[in-house]
């Protein structure tokens, strides 16, 4: 071997040795290592293990490249990629953690909303229960009323359904002597049965209306009709009907049901109507009446 050749060989060997990693690592590789260290100590180990592993593999490739050829620019590129992958793993892990926290809050909110809904539901159930028992009570009352009226009808006293309520019409000739406001015995008998029926409907308002035909002075007829209505009312109360449940009013000739031109019509118009108001209907205000005068 010549001296020149030996120099050549040593140069080549020296160069080869230099390629074995004794050159300092590029800054990029140092940064990549730091980034991976940070990521491996973060939530990424638990929340983004796949991405973290990818970062580790990329770093290992960069390290190998550095060992194989320290001066190669490839090391810098591979280290850069490894660093980004580590940062990516960390970022994604943080995002998952934030998302988890948001879910926790939403779950807590849903729970308190659900709890509030449960409470409201409980209150509504209670109210519904109350309403239902009220409704049942009302239904029972309606049945009792219907049965009472049916019994009355069976006993010979008819009633009709009108918009203002159930109306029991008592003919004037049956109830009173002409021009008088004193109840006849038959009237009393009938009214006893009516009182029994009314006692089956304690929640209903009763209005007793006195009516006359058009013969004679309207004012006198008004007074007579009121006196008769009061007589009926007082007797019903005497027979056990609640006083606060029942009112009396005189209508006079103002509300005929038949033609006053004929005797039959006039007889029909002379009547007392006992109105059983519909359930829940407000009490009608009686018309202002002068104090009843006893008829001669």
């Amino acid at each position, binding site marked *: 071997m010549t001296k020149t050749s030996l120099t050549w060989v040593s140069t080549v060997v020296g160069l080869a040795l230099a390629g074995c990693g004794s050159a300092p690592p590029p800054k990029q590789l140092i940064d990549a290592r730091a980034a991976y260290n940070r990521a491996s100590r973060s939530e990424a180990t638990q929340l983004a293990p796949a991405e973290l592993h990818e970062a580790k593999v990329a770093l290992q490739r960069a390290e190998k490249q550095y060992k194989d050829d320290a001066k190669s620019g490839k090391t810098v590129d591979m280290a850069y990629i490894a660093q980004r992958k580590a940062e990516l793993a960390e970022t994604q892990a943080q*995002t998952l953690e934030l998302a988890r926290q948001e879910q926790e809050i939403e779950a807590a909110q849903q729970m308190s909303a659900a709890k509030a809904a449960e409470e409201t539901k409980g209150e509504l159930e209670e109210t519904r229960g109350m309403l239902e028992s009220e409704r049942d009570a009302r239904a029972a009352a309606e049945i009792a009323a219907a049965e009472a009226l049916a019994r009355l009808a069976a006993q010979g006293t008819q009633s009709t359904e009108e918009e203002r309520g159930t109306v029991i019409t008592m003919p004037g000739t049956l109830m009173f002597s002409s021009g008088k406001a004193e109840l006849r015995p038959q009237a009393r008998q009938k009214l006893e049965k009516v009182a029994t029926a009314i006692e089956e409907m304690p929640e209903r308002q009763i209005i007793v209306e006195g009516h006359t035909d058009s013969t004679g002075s309207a004012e006198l007829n008004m007074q007579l009709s009121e006196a008769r209505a009061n007589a009926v009312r007082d007797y019903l109360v005497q027979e056990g009907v609640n006083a606060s449940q029942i009112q009396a009013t005189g209508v006079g000739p103002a509300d005929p049901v038949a033609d006053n031109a004929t005797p039959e019509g006039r007889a029909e118009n002379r009547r007392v109507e006992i109105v059983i108001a519909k359930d829940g209907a407000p009490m009608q205000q009686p018309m202002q009446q002068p104090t009843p005068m006893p008829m001669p």
Partner: protein
Amino acid sequence: MKSAIAAIVTAGFGVWLAGCSSTPPPTQRMTSAKASVRAAQELGADQIPKAQLHLQLAEEQVRHADELIDRGEMERADLLLQRANTDAQLAIAITRQDGVRDGLRESIDTMETLP
């Protein structure tokens, strides 16, 4: 000896030449890098400073890779495109995190206003 060394040098030079021209252009890598950049742009990465930084890096590296491909430097271009891809992915991840953080902030605000 001289001829042996000459042979090694020639072989080395040949290898170096091969690295320059026999590698195909990284077209697939280019497509995916450009797609990632576009995705980051559409997500609004340019609205968040830290994301915008990585988006810009990605865009620059794609441009640089284009130039390298024109010059026939395929291997370097391929590495640059890989870099661009990871930058774009990071820009996307940062943008998404910002969105989730906003949502969390809103939930906290809602919670605090409840009776």
